[in-house]
Every structure is written in C-alpha cells, then in structure tokens.
C-alpha cells in the first residue's frame, strides 16, 4: 500500500534513491540553520545578560564633575584625573567634587536614598617582579561592606590592607596576603599594601568597575594621592526605582544653579547604547551567516535541476498516462520541501547543541538560553532554511511540469 498521496510517495522515493546527494544538499541547509540560529541566540543571550546586569543598577545614579561638552563618562569611576607622578595630589582645578557639593547631594538625596563618595586613580602597580596598571579606589569602610562582596578573605581593616577584583587577582596571581606596591619608584615614593580579600566578580557597571581594581579605605587613598575633601565621583542609590528621574533632576537643579558643575547619569543611556550596539552587531553577523544559506540554496537548486534532468523520461511517462502538470509541479516542490525540512529539523537539533556551547563560551552563562527571546531563533532559522529550500525548488519544478510529454518520452 502506497497511501493515497502517490505523488508524495514518489518524491520520498526519489529522495531516498539518491540518498547521498540528498543528504549533501540537506547538509547545506543544516549548516545555514545552525549558523543563523546560534548567532541569533548568542546575540540574544548577550543582550539578555547585559540587560539583566544593567538592571541591577537601574536604581543608581552617578554624579561626576562636569567636564564640558559631552555627557560625561559612560562607564566606571576610573578615569577622573591623570596622574603625574605618584604621591602628588593631582587636583587640577574643578575636576573634582568637593565636600560642599557632596553635602549638597547628600541633603538632596536624603529622602530618597543614600549617597557615597568614590575616589579613584589609575596608577602603576608592582607585584613581585611583575608590573602593571590598575585603578585604585578609595571608599568609606562601611560603604565598602555595603556595596562590595568579598568572595575570599575579609574587608580591609587597616590603611595598608586592600581588597582586589577577581580579574586582577587572577592576572597577577594575587592571593590573600600578597603584597602590592603602588606607585612608580622613578617618580617618587611607593606604598606597599597587603591583599586581605578578593571580591566577587561584578561585571560591567557604571558606578564602580572593581574587577580589575584595588580597593582600599579613603585614608589609604588620600595617604597616597592626597585630595582631602575632594572626590572623583558620587554614587547615589535610590530606594524607589520610580523616583530615579526626580532625584536626577533634583541634583542637577541643586548643583548646577549658576553653571554646570556636575553631570548626573543613570544607567538607561548606557543600557540603550549597549543593547543597540549588540543588536547591530548580531544583525550584521547574522547577515553573514545568511550567506551560508544562500550557498545552501544554490546546492539545493543544483540537486533539484539534476533530479529533473535525470527524470525527464519518467516525467514523460507520468504525463502520458494522465498526470496533470500541477501534480508534477507538486512532486518536485515536495522533493525540495523534504530536503528543506530534513535539513531544518537536523539543523534545529544541531543548533540547540552548538548554540548552547557557543552561548556558554561567548556569553559565559547559558541561563537565558531557553528564554523566549533566545530560543525563538531556532524555529526562525528553521523556517528561513525550509522556506529557502522550497522557493529554490520552484523553478526546477516549474520546468519539470512544463515539459512536453512527447519530447520527454523521447529522452533517453
């Protein structure tokens, strides 16, 4: 028994008869589907994980000295002043927030949340024989406990002890008890500090970038760089997310009365710019992956043309015994569809495996892998792959259906 759709049965038998050729053609679709799906999922996972990370700071504002022109810095508290020789108090005029301003901010913020000061400096450091650069943060001891999490060790208790970010620790092989020499010996004195704790990874953030930094007490910082009563940045934590704009405006109004003194930033701009960059990148890379589907289309087209040319006589027989043109058309469209569907299904399974590995490797976490925004790329790529196959099959099928029965019967 062949079932009542004998045309479909013929298509399937043709695919099976030319198994190797069909597999190779379908393989093109598999690769295309995997490429598009994995890249799409990678992009989605990056966006999702960045968005999640950034939403942790949706209730935070950073206040930095107004530097004129642009909207201030985007990220991190690392770039305040340029160090010219260690130990010098590098306050070039107004590029700092002073105590008065901080007290103003504290007063404005008081009913909405809390504000704390951040001092930061980029400097040369030496560990054993290795040298490098790192951001050195000076934070209030209580604030440090509140906002930073120590993964190993403890919070600094003295002016010579510090905690370090996990990336820096790994790169310089720092352990609890390691000594770091801060400052350039050629340009003045250096300060030696002891690592008492290693922080948990904090990732991308705009309030503090601690992964590659050394964090010590305010006293330690001013001991090295001076700058009593001067800060590089003030971070504000707002209790109610809905009041973030109110607080932002209040600070701006309060401090920038005469001229622009400070820049207040929230995370929304950074979030926008990062997600839009990611989505542009993803789209671009996906377009490149789309080329692989184009190649697949060419190979499907080739196989379909071969199948038609090989079966001219058979088409003649089918037509001569009363098979309609539309049935011949259907037979070859089916053949292309079978190749497309097989390719798309295998491609989908492979995308789940390969996509998972890619996401894990490139994004670092697969926790959003099965999120709708990510997993949707699998059916999407499947649909695109199968559709390309079917569309590619239309011309060969049309050719087949328009063969003249007598001419076709005369073919060898």
């Amino acid at each position, binding site marked *: *028994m*062949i*079932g*009542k759709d*004998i045309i479909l049965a*013929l298509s399937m*038998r*043709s695919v099976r*008869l030319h198994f190797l050729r069909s597999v190779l053609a379908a393989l093109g679709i598999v690769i295309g589907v995997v490429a598009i799906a994995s890249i799409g999922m990678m992009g989605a996972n990056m966006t999702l994980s960045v968005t999640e990370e950034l939403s942790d700071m949706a209730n935070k504002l950073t206040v930095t000295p107004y530097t004129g022109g642009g909207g201030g810095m985007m990220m991190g508290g690392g770039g305040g002043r340029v160090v010219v020789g260690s130990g010098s108090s590098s306050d070039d005029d107004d590029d700092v927030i002073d105590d008065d301003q901080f007290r103003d901010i504290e007063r404005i913020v008081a009913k909405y949340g809390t504000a704390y000061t951040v001092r930061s400096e980029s400097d040369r450091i030496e560990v054993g024989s290795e040298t490098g650069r790192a951001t050195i943060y000076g934070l209030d001891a209580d604030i440090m406990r509140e906002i930073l999490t120590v993964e190993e060790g403890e919070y600094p208790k003295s002016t010579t002890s510090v905690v370090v970010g996990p990336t820096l620790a790994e790169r310089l092989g720092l352990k609890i008890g390691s000594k770091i020499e801060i400052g350039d010996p050629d340009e003045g004195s250096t300060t030696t500090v002891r690592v008492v704790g290693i922080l948990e990874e904090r990732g991308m953030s705009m309030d503090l970038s601690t992964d590659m930094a050394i964090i010590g007490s305010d006293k330690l910082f001013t001991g090295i760089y001076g700058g009593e009563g001067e800060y590089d940045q003030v971070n504000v934590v707002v209790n109610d997310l809905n009041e973030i704009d109110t607080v932002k405006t209040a600070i701006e109004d309060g401090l920038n009365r005469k001229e622009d003194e400070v820049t207040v930033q929230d995370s929304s701009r950074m979030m926008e710019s990062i997600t839009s960059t990611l989505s542009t990148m993803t789209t671009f890379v996906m377009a490149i992956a789309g080329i692989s589907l184009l190649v697949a289309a060419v190979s499907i087209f080739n196989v379909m043309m071969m199948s038609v040319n090989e079966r001219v006589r*058979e088409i*003649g*027989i*089918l*037509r*001569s*015994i*009363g*098979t*309609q*043109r539309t*049935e011949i058309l259907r037979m070859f469209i089916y053949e292309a569809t079978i190749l497309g569907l097989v390719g798309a299904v295998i491609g989908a399974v492979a995308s789940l495996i390969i996509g998972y590995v890619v996401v894990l490797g490139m994004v670092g976490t697969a926790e959003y892998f099965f999120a709708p925004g990510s997993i949707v790329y699998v059916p999407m790529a499947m649909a695109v792959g199968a559709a390309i196959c079917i569309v590619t099959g239309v011309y060969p099928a049309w050719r087949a259906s328009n063969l003249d*029965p*007598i001419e076709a*019967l005369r073919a060898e």
Partner: protein
Amino acid sequence: MSSPVIELDNVTKVYPLPSGDVTALREISLTIDEGEFVAIMGPSGSGKSTLLNQIGCLDRPTSGNLFLAGKNIREMDDRELTSLRLSSLGYIFQKFNLIPLLTAYENVEYPYIMKHRKNDDTGRVRDLLALVGIDESLSAHKPNELSGGQQQRIAIARALVNDPAILLCDEPTGNLDSQTGAQIMEVLSDLHRKGRTIIMVTHESEIAAYAERTIVIRDGRVA
C-alpha cells in the same frame, strides 16, 4: 453496432525544426468505430507514432480536426486532455514505460489513484495483474527486476485500470522476442474480443494480422 469513436479530418502535423520543418502527417482523414481493432502499418519514419500520439492526446495537430467520441480536442486545454488520457485512453508503448520508482502493483494502481484519489480497495489491480498473468509475488517487484514480457504485461494492466474506451499500442511487441510477442498479442486479441477498441502501430505484418483492419501509412499519408 458501431459509431465512430475516433474521427480525423484533414489532420496535418508539422514539427518545426531549426533545419527546416518536418511534415510528419499530411491531411489524414479516417474514422475508427467503437470495438474495432485497427493496425497502423508503414515503414519506419512514415508517421505512425505521430498519428497515434495525436489520437492519444499527447500532442495536437498543426491543422485539421480530431474528434474523440464526438468531441473536438482542439477545444480542450492541457488539463482536459490530461484527464482524457487518464480516464478514457490506455497507452501501451514499445519501451513499456513503467515508472521505475514504483513496484509492478503500484504501477498498475497509479492511474487508479490519480483518478479516484484513493487506493484500490475493489481488487481491480490484483485482478488485472492476474488477467495479464502476473502473480502476486511478481507484483511486488520494481520494473527493472522484471523481464520485457512481464513489463509489457504490467503496462497492459496499467492501461486498463481506469477502463478506457480506447487502447493505443505503439509497437507493443517491438522490444520482445517473437514468442513473448505472440503471448502479448493473445492478451490484446482477448481484450478486443471482450469489446475494447484497440489501435495498434506496428511494422510487422504477422503482428498486424491480429487486427481486423489495417491502415497503411507512407510519408505521412494514408496509402
């Protein structure tokens, strides 16, 4: 007892070729009545197959009219001609022309499914195969696993499955040895005795002898 099932009126067929037109049929007029067994004879290249292809609705005359059961095929489109081939005409070719992807049984069932849009549940396919002498074990084989005589028997069963008014045979024994050929002719004679209209092209007079009437074609004209 007879009325014309096939009527040709000044049928001309010209094949336009780059090297010049080939006129395969020149103003042929003839009628064939229901139940007749007609042989079309003539030397190779005389236009026998071309004539049969016009009657079989595989092609259209360049000029002149062809009536099948009183209907002018000039007024039918490809879709209608195709259904006519499916339901009213049975074709038997010199080269058997079975569908290689289908088994013997499926080859016979194919036109049935095309017409009725369902598998044969009446036992007709099995009966026809038995009638032409193909047993059940052979009917599960693909055409390339069968002998020429067996393939032609299957082709006859296929041609009969939709109970066509006319059976068209183009050199049905041309690819068979004389003994097998004689067996095939016995099957056809039998069908004729049961009332089927048969038109058969051949260039062998022993084969033509099975028919009641012989039309000789020379250079595209009835001689």
